């Protein structure tokens, strides 16, 4: 655009347009100056965010990356003196560290179980909310409450609920005549973690699914009805596919959060009994802050980051445009 103005202005000069006419058009240097000014302004807007990101995210990440190629720990002197060990940590993690591999597998299993439950329940509730009934808006707000409670509080609340003399076991005694020691068995501890996560985050799915359903265009749904589809067929063949981008966005965002799941598990089970509920974040925390294997922990974290990036990249591929908004 600035160049175009400059060229037309030059042509004007060559054709001998009177100087008085030319003054109204911006001179080439003026146009360039405006463009430069605009670019400088844009950089100014981004600068504070960039500075923060660089100093508070990029630098620590680079430090962690550098550290992951050493076997440094705080007991072994300065990080600057640590020797380069190549991919030693990474090899150790992937080949020999069964606890790491198990934690990764456990986290993935947890994601699949929790996300399926949260999606199914959240979507089911959202579909019910397409109907009209009394007290709908109050119920809507109430059902969203769990996602606003801080994770630590959620952790302690469920810890109290699942005490051996807590209310859940009281109900269980009445219904089944028996009640487990929730935190003593790997299986039951798992159930507590899953129940806690599902309680905490199903409202998010409910919210996103309801927003998604309400913003679907109505006419394709009507068209399907007119073409003879039953309500069930309309839902599975038309509504659900149209909702797919929203579902994927919700799943990706929640999957990222589960990879980072720490607070609730830390409070509920600390990964126990033994390491049976140890998630990947909890394992990295223990490596770094209990065993002080900082370099090794950093390497584990980078593996997780790479895995998550790949997962998100491929999952988001079909809906990237929507996440970006309308292309300009």
């Amino acid at each position, binding site marked *: 655009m600035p160049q175009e103005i400059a060229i037309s202005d030059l042509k004007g000069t060559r054709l001998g347009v009177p100087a008085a006419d030319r003054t109204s058009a911006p001179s080439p240097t003026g146009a360039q100056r405006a463009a430069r000014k605009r670019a400088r302004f*844009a950089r100014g*807007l*981004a600068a*504070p965010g960039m500075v*923060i*990101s660089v100093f*508070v*995210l990029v*630098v*620590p990440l680079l430090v*962690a990356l550098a550290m992951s190629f050493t076997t440094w720990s705080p007991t072994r002197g300065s*990080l600057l003196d640590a020797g380069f060990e190549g991919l030693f940590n990474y090899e150790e993690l992937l080949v020999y560290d069964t606890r790491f591999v198990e934690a990764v597998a456990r986290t993935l299993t947890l994601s699949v179980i929790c996300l399926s439950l949260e999606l199914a329940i959240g979507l089911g*509730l959202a579909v*019910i909310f397409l*109907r*009209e*009934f009394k007290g709908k808006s109050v119920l809507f707000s*109430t*059902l*969203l*409450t*769990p996602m*606003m409670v*801080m994770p*630590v*509080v959620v952790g302690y*609340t*469920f810890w*109290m*609920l699942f005490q051996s003399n807590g*209310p859940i076991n*009281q109900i269980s005694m009445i219904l089944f005549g028996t009640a487990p020691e929730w935190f003593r068995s790997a299986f039951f501890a798992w159930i507590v973690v899953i129940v806690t996560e599902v309680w905490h985050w199903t409202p998010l799915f409910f*919210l*996103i699914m309801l*927003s998604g359903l309400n*913003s679907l265009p109505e006419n394709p749904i*009507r068209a399907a009805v007119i073409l003879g589809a039953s309500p069930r067929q309309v839902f599975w063949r038309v509504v659900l596919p149209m909702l797919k981008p*929203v579902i994927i966005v*919700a799943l990706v*965002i929640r999957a*990222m959060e589960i*990879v*980072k799941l*720490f*607070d609730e598990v830390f*409070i509920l089970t600390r990964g126990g009994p033994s390491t049976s509920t140890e998630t990947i*974040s*909890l394992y*990295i925390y223990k490596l*770094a*802050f209990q065993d002080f294997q*900082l370099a090794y*922990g*950093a390497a584990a*974290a980078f593996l997780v*980051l790479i895995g998550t990036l790949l997962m*998100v990249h491929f999952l988001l591929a079909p809906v*990237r445009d929507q*996440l*970006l908004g309308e292309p300009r």
Partner: protein
Amino acid sequence: MNTRPLTPLLALILLVALVVTLFPIFWIVMTALKPPTDWNAAPAIWIPSEPTLINFLTLFDPEAIGAFGVGGISESATAAVFGSILTSTCATLISVGIGFFAAIGLSRYTRVNRFTPLFILSGRMFPPAAIAVPFVIIFSAIQLIDTYVGLIAIYVAITLPFATWMLKSFVDEVPREVEEAAMIDGQSRLMAHLTVTAPLIKGGLFATTLFIFILNWSEFLFALVLSYSNIETIPIRLAKYVTATAGTLFGVQAALAVLAMAPLIVAGFLIQKHLARGMTFGAVKR
């Protein structure tokens, strides 16, 4: 679409959902009102026969509960409440302030390519336990560990991507023409954005501020590894009621939990219609 009424089965499902949603909240509120004898009674006591505020009093006056024969609390929660308010408020205001300018930049002056969101999201993908490691090292070196400034800096960094993308989605909805009109009228770009764009997304700024506040107020892991004795936040304080010598102080812990979650629930209701947008980085609008 023709809207249909509820069937009895669907009404029952909603009732179950309501009970399941509210039961844990009901339980923690009831526990906060229980005297120490009821905290861990077997069988569990659902509704305290003599509700008391002693747990709330104990939060700020550790000696108060001594009347019930419970000891072992040496510190009040005042410092934690102060710490949470200070870090959350400062970090939120800085994050939203910086995020506003970054959002304008992204929405108006930058061609967003397909990797930009991934780049921004990647900051959110790294397990916080791992980012915490270099932070501990760097902050120790520059004496920022165990300080509010350090914690605030981290909170700003963590929430900035959320603030930026949420605000960008609001700025995107403002037509460029109104800003351009102001610029043609002789305002500088900066003034045009501050006096025209900002008021137009007032609601969005409010929602983003509360949303970021919820995130900061809830943060646990960084506070856990970056605080020793000088600073404290509510989530850290909550954890300390477990390790006290008298076993778990359920009632006191519940009282602090209720105090901690009440403002978040209120904030959540206030920004209800923008929650989906915030949680999905602006991908799902209303």
